[in-house]
């Protein structure tokens, strides 16, 4: 664990993956060895139960700042559960119970004095199915700003968020029309704009492209990579090519809620430690 892992956010380092284009295996090893990036989120021996069923077993993971961390694995492996335990969305499920530590800047978010509402204002979320509110495009993006009572120029913030979500050009003239009138891909980018408008530190994405066509998917993927310049992104995906394309780190969950391997994405896909991970990845590639 990092010596200063519990400290406040350090001044942002340029994203180390600038040299990604020159990536060779050796280079990657150097990267993973030398790179010291503060973990924003640290999971320590995290167990999650739904009633009597244990959905996650002792998860240890350090999620680095301003990078894309992908969570992959077969259905029911607990990757979404892990994602939802980061911003305590599992609190909304009556039978869910969490044990162990999940630290955000060193503070266990499951401590009694943590307000999940305040936590979720720092950790935004994008869901599997586009879920815009039945409100205007503008009001959708402004929603977070309004409930959080942020003292900002709402107009400006809405425009910036839409621009960052690569949606502004398409909707600039129809900000007053309903968010539900947009196409599925546009709706998902609207949801991303809505999540980043209040300027959270972390964005959690739960299979954000799985309900979209390939063109819309590639737009979302481009967007995720751009977002990682300003935000820490944790993305659940069942699409391994997607994880390989867009993530810096990859966590592989297998069978019943065990984290089998967590490492740099290139390492996972080119030279995984675990045979099971290799089987899973190569099996999928055929």
């Amino acid at each position, binding site marked *: 664990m990092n010596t200063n892992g519990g400290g406040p956010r350090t001044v942002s380092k340029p994203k180390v993956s600038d040299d990604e284009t020159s990536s060779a295996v050796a280079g990657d090893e150097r990267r993973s060895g030398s790179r010291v990036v503060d973990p924003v989120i640290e999971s320590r021996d995290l167990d999650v139960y739904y009633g009597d069923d244990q959905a996650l077993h002792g998860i240890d993971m350090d999620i680095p700042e301003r990078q894309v961390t992908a969570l992959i694995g077969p259905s029911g492996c607990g990757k979404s559960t892990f994602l939802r335990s980061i911003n305590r969305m599992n609190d909304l499920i009556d039978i869910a119970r969490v044990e162990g530590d999940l630290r955000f800047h060193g503070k266990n978010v499951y401590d009694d004095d943590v307000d999940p509402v305040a936590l979720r204002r720092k950790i*935004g*979320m994008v869901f599997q199915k586009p*879920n*815009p509110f*039945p409100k205007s495009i503008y009001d959708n993006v402004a929603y977070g700003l309004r409930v*959080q009572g942020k003292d900002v120029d709402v107009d400006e913030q809405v425009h910036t968020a839409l621009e960052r979500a690569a949606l502004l050009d398409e909707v600039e003239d129809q900000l007053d029309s309903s968010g*539900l009138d947009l196409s599925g891909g546009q709706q998902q980018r609207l949801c991303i704009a809505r999540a980043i408008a*209040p300027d959270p530190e972390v964005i959690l994405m739960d299979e954000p492209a799985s309900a979209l066509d390939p063109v819309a998917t590639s737009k979302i993927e481009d967007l995720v990579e751009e977002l990682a310049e300003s935000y820490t992104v944790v993305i659940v995906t069942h699409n391994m090519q997607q994880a390989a394309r867009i993530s810096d780190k990859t966590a592989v969950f297998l069978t019943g809620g065990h984290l089998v391997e967590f490492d740099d994405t290139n390492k996972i896909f080119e030279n995984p430690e675990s045979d099971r991970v290799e089987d899973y990845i190569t099996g999928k590639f055929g």
Partner: protein
Amino acid sequence: MSDDDPMNITAGSSGSIDDRKNAAIRYVFFSCAFVTVLTTLGIILVLVQGSIEFFQHVSIVEYLTETEWSPVISPHSYGVLPLVWGTLVITIGSALIAIPVGTATAIYLSEYADPQVRKTVKPTLEILAGIPTIVYGFFALSFITPLIQRFYPETGTFNAAAGAIVVGIMIIPMVSSLSEDAMSAVPDDLRNAAYGLGATKFEVSTSVVVPASLSGVIASYILALSRAIGETMAVTLAAGMHPQITVDPLEPIQTMTAYMVQIGISDVSVGSIGYQSLFAVGLTLFVMTLSMNLLSLWIKSRYREEYQ
């Protein structure tokens, strides 16, 4: 029978029996539906016919603009406005009670209550709707009015306030139950989206769930109001039989329905103007409730949110 042949799937000679049976069943169902439609048409016809006779003696302008209603006792006057006023006072007064309480109840049941509590409270509320309205009338006379008299001793036995309050209580379950249905139909995806943005439960309820279910909620209001307009026994008992236009809720009033009760049980002779006025008032009432119900249907279809 050709049933022995497994390959025989044509109608054959036995098919005609099934055909006749099907046709018979079809006609039974059709006639049931037809009787309902016929009854409705018959009622409208009777109302319109009686009203036509009434309006042969009374001008429709007088009926709609005069402010005195005394069709039986001379000096005769045929202005329906005092009765409409009485109905409006009851309707608006009951709405002031039922809409806030009913909506808050619906939000509680849909967003806050444990599933176990919801399972108990919702049917209990719906039992309120099953109590005979005459019982509500006695409840107003024997409980609500004395309560009002404790604060305003000059209040009479019959007063508009007691009528409005009791009708308000009566229609709360309609508002809460139908609104709760609409709120529960809002997909959890929307709630999660709001929670994910750091909204509190109250904010999720008021700024996401209620707006998203607004068409159903408003439709429930209108149906409840339409019920208040048509409510008869409770208001006859509680609010009295004194047609007048007054803003004092402690005064007795008379609603259109209460007037119809009064004439219905009185000894006015068939064919008299007093008797015919029953049909005119009935038709007026029918037009009012019908337009409310149509409005409710229109709002529901026009503003229904489409969720993928």
